[in-house]
């Protein structure tokens, strides 16, 4: 796993350099000297190594909860351990958005959504991720993933969505 990340990283650097070089080529461009002087292509490519999300591409980014509960369900753990492993070594940060289903009052659900986001955050921190890399925000019941009433909709809406920033 780690090896493949490394080789991909090297490939990304090489590709980044190539892109950087090719963008510097047109001599007719009056800004060419300027552009060449920035070295932006090289700098960006090193960032690209870090930004590569392929290592976590296959991992779940949505984690579900029971009604009026902020207890992380066991099925989410494996994916979160994978995210934590990646985050420990990457300079990327994550945003955790907590959500609730439409039942219950809106501000209470806002608090519940935050509890859920915090449960995911706490799990990542326990796995060694720096809390400075994690931003949490609750949308309560204001942004359902699916509309409609009934447990099949509700269960999809009681969730935390993880996204890399």
């Amino acid at each position, binding site marked *: 796993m780690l090896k493949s990340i490394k080789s991909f990283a090297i490939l990304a650097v090489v590709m980044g350099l190539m892109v950087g070089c090719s963008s510097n080529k047109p001599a007719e461009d009056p800004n060419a000297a300027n552009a060449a002087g920035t070295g932006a292509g090289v700098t960006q490519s090193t960032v690209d190594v870090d930004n590569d999300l392929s290592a976590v591409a296959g991992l779940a980014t949505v984690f579900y909860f029971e009604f009026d509960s902020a207890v992380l369900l066991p099925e989410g753990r494996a994916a979160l351990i994978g995210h934590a492993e990646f985050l420990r070594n990457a300079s990327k940060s994550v945003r955790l958005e907590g959500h609730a289903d439409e039942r*219950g009052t809106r501000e209470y659900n806002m*608090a519940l959504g*935050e*509890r859920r986001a915090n449960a995911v955050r706490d799990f990542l921190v326990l796995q060694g991720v720096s809390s400075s890399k994690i931003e949490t*925000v609750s949308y309560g019941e204001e*942004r359902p993933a699916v509309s409609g*009433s009934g447990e099949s909709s509700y269960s999809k809406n009681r969730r935390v969505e993880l996204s890399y920033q």
Partner: protein
Amino acid sequence: MKYSWIFLFILSLFATPVMARLTIEITSGVDNPTPIAVVPFAGSLGLSEDIQDIVSADLLRSGFFRPIPKTDMLSMPKAEAEVFYRDWRMLGASYLVVGQMTNMGGRYQLQFELYDVISQRKIFQKQVAGTDSQLRDIAHAVSDAVYEAITGIRGAFSTKILYVEDLKQAGAGRYRLVYADADGARDRVLFSSSEPLLSPAWSNDMSKVAYVSFETSRPAIFIQELATGKRTQMTNFQGLNGAPAWSPDDQSLALVLSKDGNPEIYTLEIATKKLRRVTDHFAIDTEPNWTADGRSLIFTSNRGGSPQIYQVSLATGRVERLTFEGDYNARPRLSPDGKTIIMVHRRDGIFHITSQDVKTGNMRILTETWLDESPSIAPNGAMLLYATQHQNKGVLAAVSMDAGVKFRLPSKQGDVREPAWSPFSK
């Protein structure tokens, strides 16, 4: 003069006028509503608003009256000399409203009279005046006067409402904070955003509203002045910034912040931005509402294992549990007389609006619709507005505090929710 405030009622909203999006469907009334005849007012034909129609609709919506259709009327008196009680007794009317409108160089003056048909006497004669754009205010002032004279309860037909509309299409104006008359007419968008808006709350002097906006990609509490549209961001803390509630003197907001780890209730002095923490518990504390004396807050907390209503004294910090029935009681609102708590209550998996007598603790279910939430009580304590679902859409509905009268205000577009009934204008 009692209705002199009408003259002063110049609310120059910096807002967009939109088509009236709420209509009214009465779903239940009292068993024997009082028949009342509102005669079309002389001199009001051809005006931009149908005054008689607005007054009749107000009285009908109160649930206590059954307005007699004008097509049934045998005569159209405009003053006492033309009133023949026999005509109105034959129609079964208990009360009669007549009046005449005078146009005085662009200003409209309505003189109106209320009669008791049974005892054959005039109850009052009053006047109200305003401009062409205030014809609806004139009509609501008539409704207020008639309602109060007959029921003894101050009318709330001249009051306003706020609500949140979700057009359910991603884009710049998806979420809107709307300001409207209590009957849903003359709606104006106060603020719109691509991000969620919630928890609108009136200042007690009706000059400002506070609400939660996600426009910064996180929740923040804003105050918006109604007259100018000027907005001020009041909070920008890590975590929750929610549930603003104005203190009775409008000097402070009670609100919910989680910056210290858990959702806790704070008070924020508006002028100085001085923050004071009120609750301190690892559970969820939210949805504060002030008692009328400004000395305590009632709020929702799940510190006992399920959401219940508690009261906290601001002076001592002492917390007392107020609800014990059921395993979900949330978002409390005190009635204007302080005798009743209205809240969201779950029973057998269904969310109802319930009232609880503060003294006896007796709970009563007021609504039986679907996913009922966000109750907001009229300033006269006679009715409350709440949000519910009807035909898979979020709509507003109203119910009287004794559960006898019910009506819906269906939306023409999107989901409508989070109603906030205004105080009386001073």
